[in-house]
């Protein structure tokens, strides 16, 4: 008796999984959300949105013309980060800077050659538009880098004994500071949020809207079978979308992959638990596709975007907001994924993230199960 009950349960579960998979494959919106949208996002972050300052327009002011300053100017002109216009007077550029036509003014001062000859630390002035702090600091940093490079070259050339002390930044793990390298792992988290939360909440709400949920409930199916049968295909779909993203990231965008595949899947699987749980909870609570999609976007997609450290540094957020970020599962996934890609496996960090994501997931599932008892009214 108990044997036949178990096999009945297995069969019901398999039937639900098969049904859900068939529906997912036939529904164009599934393909759209799980495969086309990730592609668009990846391309957008891979090509369109770049936080690097390649070819920033700046004005270069040469207050004196000596072979030395000409040489430094040539070095700025050759830089792939700047598009340089030269002049002798900084007033020529003031208006452009105010209008935003250029992002900064680099001034090589009148006493530059003399200072350099005297062995002083050579100084140049960088004037930037402080209303765009990101761009401003990039201009500043890259200007400094260019000068440092130039200096090193001169030293090699002249082999002079004068030691120059210049501050040099080094970026570990992403020495080229290509933002694409950390945006692409981040966007994988966004894609899994879309599949896990948005898609799941839509498909469950759709069953309520079309009245099929009611018909299912009037069969011997239990609420747990219904829930698990519902999310299992989307779990697989989420991992499939993630795999697609990783392949693209590595093969097309050349993002390094220094960790292990095991770590990648373990982290992604753990992240899908709260994502799916949240999707189920939303749809069980709303039973309406429109409302479910709005809620999923606001409560899952936007936080994954804004509060996860994906685009904005969590450390630079107000303290209250920082506290909120602890509730966002993507906050734990994104640094871990970036580590998998750019650094390698750091299991203590991964295990902690996985544990926290599973905990958040458990809360969501408990709430969803409470809301999806086999009752209608």
């Amino acid at each position, binding site marked *: 008796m108990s044997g036949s009950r178990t096999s*009945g349960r297995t*069969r*019901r579960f*398999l*039937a*639900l999984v*098969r*049904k859900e998979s*068939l*529906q997912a494959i*036939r*529904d164009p919106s599934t393909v759209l959300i799980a495969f086309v949208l990730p592609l668009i996002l990846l391309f957008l972050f891979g090509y369109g949105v770049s936080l690097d300052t390649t070819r920033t327009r700046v004005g270069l002011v040469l207050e004196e013309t000596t072979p030395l300053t000409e040489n430094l100017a040539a070095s700025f002109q050759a830089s792939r980060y700047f598009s340089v216009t030269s002049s002798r007077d900084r007033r020529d550029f003031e208006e452009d800077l105010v209008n935003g036509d250029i992002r900064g003014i680099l001034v090589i001062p009148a006493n530059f050659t003399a200072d350099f000859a005297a062995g002083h630390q050579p100084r140049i002035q960088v004037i930037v538009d402080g209303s765009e702090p990101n761009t401003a600091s990039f201009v500043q940093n890259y200007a400094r880098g260019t000068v440092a490079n130039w200096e090193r070259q001169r030293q090699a050339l002249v082999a002079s004994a004068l030691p120059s002390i210049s501050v040099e930044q080094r970026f570990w793990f992403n020495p080229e500071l290509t933002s694409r390298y950390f945006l692409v792992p981040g966007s994988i988290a966004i894609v899994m949020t879309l599949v896990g939360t948005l898609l799941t909440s839509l498909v469950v709400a759709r069953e309520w809207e*079309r*009245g*099929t949920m*009611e*018909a*299912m*409930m*009037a*069969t*011997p*199916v*239990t609420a747990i079978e219904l829930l698990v049968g519902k999310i299992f295909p989307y779990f697989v779909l989420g991992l499939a979308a993630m795999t697609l993203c990783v392949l693209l990231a590595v093969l097309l965008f050349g993002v390094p992959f220094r960790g292990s595949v095991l770590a990648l899947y373990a982290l992604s699987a753990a992240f899908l638990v709260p994502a799916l749980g949240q999707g189920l909870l939303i749809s069980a609570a709303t039973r309406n596709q429109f409302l479910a999609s709005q809620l999923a976007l606001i409560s899952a997609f936007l936080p994954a975007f804004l509060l996860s450290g994906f685009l904005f540094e969590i450390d630079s957020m107000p303290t209250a907001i920082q506290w909120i970020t602890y509730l966002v599962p993507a906050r734990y996934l994104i640094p871990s994924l970036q580590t998998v890609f750019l650094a390698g496996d750091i299991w203590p960090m991964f295990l902690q993230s996985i544990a926290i994501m599973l905990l958040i997931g458990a809360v969501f599932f408990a709430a969803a199960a409470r809301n999806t008892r*086999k*009752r*209608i*009214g």
Partner: protein
Amino acid sequence: MTNEAKGRELVRLSGVTKRFEHTLALDAVSGSLFGGEITGLVGPDGAGKTTLIRLMTGLMLPDDGALEVLGFDSAKNPAGIQASIGYMPQRFGLYEDLSVQENLDLYADLRGLPQGERPDVFEELLAFTDLKRFTGRLAGKLSGGMKQKLGLACALLKKPCLLLLDEPGVGVDPISRRELWKMVENLTEEGIGVLWSTAYLDEAEACDKVLLLNGGKLLFSGKPAEMTARVENRVFRVSGIRGRKRQVLARLLDEDGIIDGVIQGEAIRIVTGNDTRPALAQAGEGASAVPATPRFEDAFIDMLGGGPGGRSRLAEAQAPFTGKDKGDEKGEDERPVIEARGLTKRFGDFTAAENISFDIRRGEIFGLLGPNGAGKSTTFKMLCGLLKPTAGEGRVAGFDLRRDAASARNRLGYMAQKFSLYGDLSIAQNLDFFAGVYGLSGEKKRERMTLVSDIFDFGRHAGQSSKDLPLGLKQRLALACAVMHEPQALFLDEPTSGVDPITRREFWTHINALVEKGVTVLVTTHFMEEAEYCDRISLIYRGRSIALGSPDELKAEVASADMPDPTMEDAFIALVERSEGQAKDAA
């Protein structure tokens, strides 16, 4: 299943009560369902039918009272119930993106139908529902009738002891409805108990037992014949009427001793308060009253204390239309108010309406009759300028809808199929809005608003959000908004589907009286009885008009030795079959 299952008590309801936020959905309902019978769960929309069915499935629990289904208490052991019932919810519970076979497989797995039995069961059900040719087709691509049969097949996979069908007759053409009924009757032979819920009172008559619900209360429980016995010898058919039948009806309804009356083709059907023969002075000389077979609806009206009177204050306040309002001198009264000339509408390669033509004279009620999806609403929308015809032309009050749709629309009142007023606005705000839309203002607007509020008795509810109103009141409000600007043509799309018979009569009393004032009415309905209220009807089937004539003419056309007195539904089915026969011959 053996014969002992027949007559076994399958469901026992004891004082079942269910409350929702604002309303008492079921009020102490008690009764029983037995094996081997079709029990009709009958009542207008909002009566509590779906709630009662959900309670029986154990998906909802009563606030008070108890349900025992197949020996299980619904609160304690819903799983026991769900293992042995078949349930078809209102929208059939099918997955539209799965094929017929995939739907069957899914429900077979969920219901635990053993692998070995499947080939035989599938074979039998597919033959039974005539879906064998369509097993590979997606359920969403099936017609309404086929969907419903598939829904039934899914509910029957593991032969249930109790089959619960929630409004299986809605959205299905009468031919499919009859086929379904026959299938269900066959099931009862095997001892299965069937609950068939419906808002159509005529379906109740065919059931073995009936539970009649109205406003959450159980009004009657028993054999339909016991119900109709209430009005035995009190139902008459008045024929040979001289003069305007609608005026005669209005006068008859206001007489003492006559509690109900409706137009039936050229005749009038009346129910008297006691079994004395009615006085027919009002019907003119030559009119005669013949006793008629009582119907379930007659008894229902009687039970509710009789229908409304025959007076329509709405129509009394209306100035008559004479056809001279366009300033034509040449007695243009002869010109039809609504004209359809070869109206055709194609959506892609699908022809929703093909070459539909008719004229509607002033003061005539014209019906478009046909099942859902036949093309009625498409035709209708082309004639009120909401849809541009692919070919052909339409005129309302002489205005060409293609060139002068705005002028035409100003002269017509439109009542849409679903409640299409603003649910978040109150009655008063809706009236105000529609008066404004139709260009009423100042004194005239105030006057009309007061008038309709008064006539339809909105006073008490005027401030309430209209979405929370009872169905009957919503329907009155929809009519009020449509007639605010005293239109000369009224377009009514399924105006009374699902409403209770009292509200329906009240509605037609107004329409009848307005028609007597020269208002022209175009009405669509899939409800065969309602077609009898029309002067002429066009039968629409699969986008074409297959017959046009008065209800009596259409019925006479199909009368035969086997069927000397066909109903409207009989006529419809016979005419559809005839037209399909012709189509086959032509092919």
